[in-house]
């Protein structure tokens, strides 16, 4: 099949008086790791909820494998191959790690035994293999992030939406999980990730879109966008790019 796996066109989402996403357009190519970055409150999570079907678009379209998803509910999108994780982790607190992941595995495996076996395999992939029978409520922050990833992965998605799975992790935990994400992509899963940890974005993403105040203001390779004056301004405020540039001129 040709064309991008996901293409979002002119997506807008209004919450009362606030236009959280304002005519955003971007595409995700098959087999890529695409990054979505931007300052706090830019609308990244909102954009994810639109792609995953948790909120309906005020305007615009979301096309997956060339089909307009319209108002398709989240569970059907998951069946089609789009699975999201949550920025604020949402474990099934009363269940064990294995049971948590098995819920995801059940999407494509009706038999309980099969789902539990799949859960075990996925847990090992993300480094939760030794905590299978622990209650999810007992996991550390890093453990919960891995669980969020494992559950989503267990649905065998085509497109995985990762919303800040590295946030709240210490540098060594980040170093541990970055290769896991790369392996997931190498296993054939396309990834769209929202991330603030720039070191991870630089090392993982093939292409990055920058969202600020609901609009896509830049796109390109990670190196390109971090050099983009518009991006620097979005993060550091109006005139920042010019000030930085003049300082460099002064220094140089």
């Amino acid at each position: 099949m040709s064309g991008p796996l996901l293409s979002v066109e002119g997506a807008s989402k209004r919450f009362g008086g606030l236009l959280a996403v304002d005519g955003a357009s971007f595409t995700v190519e098959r087999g890529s790791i695409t990054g979505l970055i931007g300052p706090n409150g830019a609308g990244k999570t909102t954009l994810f909820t639109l792609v995953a079907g948790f909120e309906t678009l005020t305007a615009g379209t979301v096309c997956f494998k060339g089909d307009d998803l319209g108002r398709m509910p989240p569970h059907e999108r998951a069946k089609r191959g789009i699975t999201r994780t949550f920025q604020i982790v949402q474990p099934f607190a009363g269940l064990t790690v294995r049971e948590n992941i098995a819920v995801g595995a059940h999407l494509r495996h009706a038999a309980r035994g099969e789902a539990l076996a799949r859960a075990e395999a996925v847990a090992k992939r993300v480094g939760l293999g030794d905590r299978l029978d622990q209650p999810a409520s007992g996991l550390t922050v890093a453990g919960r992030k891995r669980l969020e990833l494992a559950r989503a992965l267990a649905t065998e998605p085509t497109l995985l939406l990762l919303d800040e799975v590295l946030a709240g992790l210490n540098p060594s935990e980040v170093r541990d999980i970055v290769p896991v994400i790369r392996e997931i992509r190498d296993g054939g899963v396309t990834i769209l990730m929202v991330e603030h940890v720039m070191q991870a974005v630089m090392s993982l993403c093939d292409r990055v879109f920058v969202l600020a105040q609901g609009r896509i203001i830049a796109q390109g390779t990670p190196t390109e966008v971090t050099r983009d004056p518009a991006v620097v301004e979005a993060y550091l405020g109006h005139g920042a790019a010019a000030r930085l540039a003049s300082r460099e001129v002064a220094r140089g």
Partner: protein
Amino acid sequence: MSRSGPVAAYGPILAVALLLAMLPVATSANTILNSMVMALLIALAGQGWNILGGYGGQFSFGHAVFFGTGAYVTALLQARFGVNAYVAFAAGIAAGAMVGTILGYLSFRSGLRGSYFALVTLAFAEVFRILANATAFTGGAAGTLVKLDVRPENFQFSSRAVFFWIALGLVTAVMLGVRFMERSRFGAWLVAVRENEDAARALGVDTLKVKIQAITLSAGVTAAAGGFYVQYFLFIDANLAYGTWISIEALLVPIVGGLGTVFGPLIGAVALHGLAEATKAIAGRIPGIDLALYGSLLVLAIAFAPNGLQGLMAKIGRGLSFGRAP
């Protein structure tokens, strides 16, 4: 738990059932059998509540609406249309389940949760109670009698023991069914809905469908208790059928016994009824004493045994084995 083999999963249920089945052999005292039949009937109604409330996390305060529908349909089909008792009983279950589907569709589709859902179920039960009380077809306030004609083919037996065994059979069958559900995809989805609906949706669970299926099953089981009640007493009226007493008992026994567990409702029902009988024997018939007792028990259960008696026993068991360890 969910990984264990079928013997470990279903064996204990069958063992408990076999053990209980000996009771009529051990005693022929009608008061004891009578009290056990009532306990089993409440266990059945409570297991219905448990499917939706314990496993699905949707707390209903109006399971009387299903109990009453099962009871009235069983009674009226016989009394008004001369339908065979077993057919009427099956129809009662089906009707109760259907009321469940409709109630579920209406309330879950509009996104009702928590106390809002509880209040809507309560309101439904009250509306049904008032209607049943005022309609001539249901016998109005006088209620409906099923013609006494003690024959097995009429689902009427002279022996209490037979009713006891039938009630035990129903409770056992439903417990086996609930265990099967626990070990199925549907069970996993239902528990996921209880634990976190958004996460469940993200993982491809059609939460609305799962909740409607759960309330349908739940209602059918509680309706079976209603139908059985009619065959046992051969009488039903609006307050018995749709009164809050059964809504309360149905939610109380799984909470006391162990929410979202197969044995919870049975343990809770036996414990509560044992206690109620004991108080009656000691305190005599002070009006409302049983309700006061239930109220205090509920408070105690929630305060000290949030996982019910079953959880409490497991905790004590663990405590003892820890105590023995060096």
